[in-house]
């Protein structure tokens, strides 16, 4: 606030003996800009979109973890029918199962972090700017391709023996 503006405000207050609240209201620097209704509604839509994205990631992570856990346990249970059999602890189903479980946990953690960052950005006062960033979905997709190729090669080698 400039000196001349501050003097004008002080003179106004002294002339009319305004209480503290009105003084704050009449101080142009303390008044927040009037809300843009369209932008506010858009922010609410973004909040809902962020929630839907998090729910999609919860479903995906649950599928990844569930599949990883299930394939290892089912194969272990089948092997358990033959107590004399020498079960390899580092078998393909275990490695794949653990890989999928790890991927599911990774996706869930980073989806949560991203969701919190989104909420913080939406709630910030001031202008909103789209923030380009690395896509978590792309990371998970590439990881799944790598795990899939490993599984393909593993099964091919196993069946050729």
């Amino acid at each position: 606030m400039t000196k001349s503006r501050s003097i004008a405000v002080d003179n106004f207050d002294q002339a009319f003996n305004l209480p503290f609240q009105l003084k704050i209201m009449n101080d142009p620097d303390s008044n927040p800009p009037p809300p843009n209704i369209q932008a506010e509604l858009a922010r609410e839509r973004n909040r809902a979109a962020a929630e839907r994205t998090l729910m999609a990631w919860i479903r995906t992570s649950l599928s990844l973890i569930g599949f990883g856990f299930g394939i290892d346990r089912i194969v272990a249970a089948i092997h358990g029918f033959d107590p004399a059999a020498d079960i390899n602890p580092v078998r393909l189903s275990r490695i794949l199962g653990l890989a999928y479980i790890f991927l599911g946990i990774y996706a869930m953690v980073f989806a949560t972090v991203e969701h919190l960052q989104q909420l913080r950005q939406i709630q910030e006062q001031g202008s909103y700017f789209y923030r380009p960033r690395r896509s978590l979905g792309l990371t998970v997709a590439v990881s799944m391709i790598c795990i899939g190729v490993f599984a393909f090669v593993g099964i091919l080698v196993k069946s050729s023996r």
Partner: protein
Amino acid sequence: MHTPSTRPTNDTTQLAKERNRQAAERTLTCWIGNSLLLMGFGISTQEIYSAMNQSFPQNSSEINSQFTDMISLGAIAFGIALLIPIAITHRLEIKSLEQDDYLVSHPRLFNLLIVVGSVILFGLVALAAVFLVSS
């Protein structure tokens, strides 16, 4: 490092860009789910069958081991093949949001035809395989 756009913009447009990005992300998670289903089917078929053969070697198997390997490897390959173009499309969509002159591009019908055609083909192969085994 992304340089901020010099084109005039407003909060509503920027918020809309973010919503578009989240919609693209949700689409990709749906495809990840489909691919996981396919790969999971392939992996579990082979692993469970192989575990059954090891635990119960005295049982004669109706299904040829080679045939099971074909099905499982085919499913895994299809799952991988489905994910690659989807991941590329997703990346292109995300990149297009960062451009100043954002325009909706519509190559999606072609992509959709390829994906739907592949699923139908996979179903026909599975149907043929079922009839082959039962005969």
